[in-house]
């Protein structure tokens, strides 16, 4: 519990730095481009159009509000994918910093997560606009998106902390993660509805064992179908997320001052 106390103390101390660093990254990302911050809007819209064309037009997917359906899935996926991919080599990419100044290493991850949360927020605003355009009727259930995102954030942060640690030690982890993420990408129902397309044990396993499939499905339920989310499922993934965070915090506290010796 000592490490958990220290974690919150460090978050309080370095949170402003994490926010400033996230802002700096966002600013520097678009600093040299002509369209500047418009890329944060253009990029997700373009991906949505591509997937809608491929899976809606070519593969004739009949899912209702398909463009919104894809956009909501993509938004959740992009956050998860960026966090996981970025975490594996986060320490290595910050070699100059890690070897010259002491900073709790999860602060680097926290800063990254703020960057991706900001991008996710933009994507959700576009999703809402798209839903209005497609005539989706909003209900109060849409507010359940907030707890769903919070649970997904905690879970992703936990996984990312553990990967960040092992990414320092295991050279192959970046490749393994890439393959793993590709598999999760196709098994998460980004461009198909798991509840409609898959049945029986496969549907059960995917929606319960794949956290991203679960969170995407819950987001679509509250936004597109005006249904309540699965509180049981959210509680389950919240507990898993907290356990992973607990493990990640302890691993990092135990090892973080040794990273500078091996990178």
């Amino acid at each position, binding site marked *: 519990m000592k490490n958990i106390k220290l974690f919150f103390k460090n978050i309080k101390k370095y949170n402003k730095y994490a926010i400033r660093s996230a802002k700096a990254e966002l600013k520097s990302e678009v600093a040299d481009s002509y369209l500047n911050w418009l890329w944060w809007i253009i990029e997700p819209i373009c991906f949505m159009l591509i997937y809608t064309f491929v899976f809606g037009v070519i593969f004739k997917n009949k899912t209702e509000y398909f463009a919104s359906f894809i956009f909501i899935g993509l938004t959740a996926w992009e956050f998860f994918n960026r966090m996981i991919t970025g975490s594996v080599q986060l320490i290595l990419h910050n070699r100059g910093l890690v070897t010259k100044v002491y900073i709790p290493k999860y602060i680097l991850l926290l800063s990254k997560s703020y960057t991706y949360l900001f991008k996710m927020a933009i994507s959700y605003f576009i999703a809402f606009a798209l839903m209005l355009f497609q005539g989706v009727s909003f209900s109060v259930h849409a507010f359940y998106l907030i707890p769903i995102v919070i649970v997904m954030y905690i879970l992703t942060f936990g996984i990312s902390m553990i990967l960040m640690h092992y990414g*320092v030690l295991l050279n192959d982890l970046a490749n393994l993660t890439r393959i793993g993420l590709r598999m999760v990408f196709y098994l998460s129902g980004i461009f198909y509805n798991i509840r409609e397309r898959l049945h029986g044990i496969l549907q059960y396993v995917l929606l319960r064992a794949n956290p991203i499939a679960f969170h995407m499905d819950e987001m679509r339920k509250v936004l597109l179908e005006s249904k309540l989310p699965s509180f049981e499922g959210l509680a389950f993934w919240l507990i898993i997320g907290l356990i992973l965070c607990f493990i990640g915090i302890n691993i990092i506290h135990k090892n973080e*001052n040794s990273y500078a010796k*091996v990178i």
Partner: protein
Amino acid sequence: MKNQDKKIAVTVKNLHISYRGLTKTSIRATWSKKRKKVEIFEALKGISFEIEEGRILGIIGKNGSGKSTMLRAIAGIFSPDKGSINLHGNTISLLSIGVGFNNKLTGYENIYLSGMLLGFSEEEIKEKEQEIINFADIGDFIFKPVKTYSSGMYSKLAFAITAILETDIMLIDEVLSVGDVKFKEKSFNKMKELISDDKRTVIIVSHSLGTISDLCDQVLWLNDGEVIEIGSPKEIIPKYKEFMNL
């Protein structure tokens, strides 16, 4: 020479640091029967010393003697494998050039980014902002992206940030040779001014025996991760020169 009081600023006790705590590996190496034997490099071998508050300690030694490792351990970047480091509640900073700089942002924005990374609050940086800008003396470039700076300008700004944002204990690793001749003199004088504060403890690592003898009132001589001797510059530097055939 500073007033000497008996308050201890840093206590290093039986410090051991090896570059073996974690081993980088690959899946193949993990499963292979022909696993390479892990090489252990002991950078520091049971170092013990104390520094009184307000003292200026210079660390000398040949390349690979463990000087920078020692500084990083005191700064909290490396954890001891054995032994302990006690800072007695003092704040500490390692004077490093350009830590946390984002080259696409302006010098002004980087003052905040780098300063906050070093553990200072926005308010503390705001208070010192003008002093940093004046000391860096790079004119309107302060509002231009750092990537447009010459290496001299980059060093000036980086030095100004770390030198103006002061802590109780300052660790300096070969940074006095930044910028042009004029700036070198200015930074050397600034260093003297900083360390002339009776409360501030300074640890300097340098190959320049002139710098060590000008600035320090105590010298620690390291060789192959062990303390050879600790004493006044007058006492240690001639012995070191003889050892190194200088």
